[in-house]
């Protein structure tokens, strides 16, 4: 009874602070918040104030007047703008606590396995500055594997590939620890950039990030369709030649071509990870295969490409977008048992 009361007062949180989306898991309640990691800052009389956070701010992305900035405080999985990231975390904590100002929850934040100590410290400090009572860090691949339901604590190798907005984490886990992990700064953002670059190069049309993301979600594919151009989509942007807005139709085949580079980077990362895997663990992985998590796992045919590239069975986790948040949340729920997957910078 007592712990319940204190639990209500503190509402401990697990935060998947992603480049593209931030998910918040509240102890005992599950995932309560899933919003884009975008903050809109308005400058009033020389003083910066938060105008909007999340979905609302994402709508402003690329459409802001001079006094408003729509910022994505995270790039490549780590904090790029410390103050804005702090404001964003503060906003999420307040939102979860119904704008109570005295809330000081225990917070678990996930960090890319390839992040440096400086980057981790930046994340921890921003969470503490946002009002967290205590901050723990958990590595993303571990959180993703726990969230996907892999038997990470058993003496058997499990391979997880978490393709996030900024980074792709490839890790082999066994006995509750990360045997090998590799983090490449290729993810959804890089795919968007690849699409933008491809369209500009081939069609002299400039599209924004949001449009590129929408294209990726609708007709993105890791490999070109076997017959024809596949699905098609109308895209709008600015013509680079004469500077007027322009609309054209683009095909799945073209987008698959554009995504070839980031996809091959992911495949390369997986192959490198497999090369560094001990033979016993490799044998386990041959049996069970690779599990894909993260938003990038939703790119169609990515599992097919990976399967053919590696010769291993590839499964996509249930609800891949929430795996990291669910795993972080489980670490929060079972904190005593999973204490050794958590770390802190102090």
């Amino acid at each position, binding site marked *: 009874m007592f712990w319940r009361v204190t639990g209500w007062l503190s509402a401990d949180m697990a935060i998947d602070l992603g480049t593209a989306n931030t998910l918040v898991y509240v102890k005992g309640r599950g995932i309560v918040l899933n919003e884009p990691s975008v903050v809109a800052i308005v400058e009033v009389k020389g003083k910066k104030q938060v105008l909007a956070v999340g979905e609302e701010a994402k709508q402003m992305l690329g459409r802001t007047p001079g006094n408003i900035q729509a910022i994505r405080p995270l790039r490549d999985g780590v904090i790029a703008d410390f103050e804005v990231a702090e404001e964003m975390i503060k906003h999420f904590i307040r939102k979860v606590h119904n704008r109570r100002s005295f809330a000081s929850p225990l917070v678990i934040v996930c960090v890319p396995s390839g992040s440096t100590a400086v980057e981790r410290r930046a994340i921890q400090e921003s969470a503490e500055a946002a009002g967290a009572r205590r901050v723990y860090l958990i590595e993303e691949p571990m959180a993703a594997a726990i969230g996907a339901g*892999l038997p990470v604590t058993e003496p058997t190798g499990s391979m997880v590939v978490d393709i996030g907005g900024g980074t792709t984490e490839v890790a082999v886990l066994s006995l509750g620890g990360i045997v090998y992990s590799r983090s490449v700064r290729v993810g959804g953002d890089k795919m968007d950039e690849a699409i933008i670059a491809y369209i500009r190069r081939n069609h002299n049309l400039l599209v924004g990030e949001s449009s590129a993301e929408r294209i990726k979600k609708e007709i993105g594919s890791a490999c070109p369709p076997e017959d024809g151009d596949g699905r098609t989509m109308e895209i709008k942007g600015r013509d680079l030649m004469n500077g007027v807005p322009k609309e054209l139709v683009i095909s799945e085949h073209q987008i698959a071509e554009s995504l070839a580079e980031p996809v091959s980077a992911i495949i390369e990362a997986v192959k490198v990870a497999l090369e560094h895997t001990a033979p016993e663990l490799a044998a386990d992985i041959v049996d069970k295969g690779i599990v894909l998590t993260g938003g990038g796992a939703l790119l169609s045919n990515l599992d097919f490409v990976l399967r053919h590239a590696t010769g291993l069975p590839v499964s996509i986790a249930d609800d891949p977008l929430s795996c990291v948040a669910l795993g972080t949340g489980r670490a929060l729920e079972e904190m005593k048992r999973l204490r050794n997957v958590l770390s802190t910078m102090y």
Partner: protein
Amino acid sequence: MASNEQDQQPPPSGQPGSPVGALLRASRVRVGGDLQDIANSLCIRHPYLLAIEEGRFQELPGATYATGFVRAYAEHLGLDGEEVVRRFRAETEGLRNRSRLAFPIPVSEERIPSGVLVFAGILLFAVAYGVWYWQSTSDRDVAGLVPDIPSRLMELINPPAKAPPPAAPVVADGAAPDAQPGHEAPPVTGTPVVVSQAQPAPEQVMPPASESESEDPEVPAPPVTSVAATAPASPVQSPPVQIPPAPAAPVPAVPTATPPAPVVAPPAAPAAAAPAVVPPVAAPVVAAAPVAAVKGQEGGSRVVLRFTGNVWVQIRDEKTTLVTRLMRKGDTYRVPSRPGLSLVAGNAGEVEVLVDGVPAPPLGPKGLVRRDVSLDPDSLKKGSDGAAPAGEKTKEPAAAGN
């Protein structure tokens, strides 16, 4: 491979337990696919695909992987992967319990014993200390070393409850014509309070006449004879039994010590018999009379020692010492009627000896230490004993106290 597939065909059809497996198998058969080819294409091991088709889901490596395999297989066959997975989940709800994460815990290398052991050790120590403490304290208790009084003697201590001490003066109601009762009365009345503190030792040793007579053959003999000499007609039991109210009035403080009647008025031989028989009547009369509240022995002792000063005395027989103490001025002591008793007095001059109520010759002058004075009534009466050691002059008068 095709033959292999044909071999596998019958079991699932007769196995209604796994609709998903049956659906996948039916779809595959409809498409005409070979399981091994599909396994190669999907990179999923053939046994796993077979297990899925046959509904042996527990043989799959895990819930996450199983779901992925089913989805991949269904999509490969052109089915709606999500729908098949949904059915698969519904089917395997029991199997899909949340995987329990149990991290391996290193073996503790602490040398400090666990809390339970420490607690048990402390408890054991406390118990051991308690036992030792109890043992040692009971050893030190001197009283504990003295053996308990035998039950036979305990009965002797408590008789007053059953047989209240008889009043000595029962006899005194005028029956005593001599000057002796009268002569004796004043000192007795003056002493009751003092006497109450008389030593218990003789009392314990000497049984009360009324009850011990029957039990104790050796002791009772003298009292009986002494009483018989004076009042042959009256049974010894009569005074204690019949005169309960008498002593209560005069000396309530002396119940345990009050001796039996005969001591004071033994000479009133014939007369005593009559009053003794009718004690209730005599009692009120007697109550006014002084009580022989003298520390001594029931059972009719003939010799009474009266002390006019502080005298250290020791009375003993051949084997045991009855009394060893300092008598105060005014104390009296009834010498039990036992043969072979002898007296050591630190100051013979302060001891008055009454034999049958009659003063006997003095034991010696003041300051004289008398040893081995026989307390035989006859010899005391004669005074021969007293005269003989007269020459034994005091060597150690200090013991007398004055």
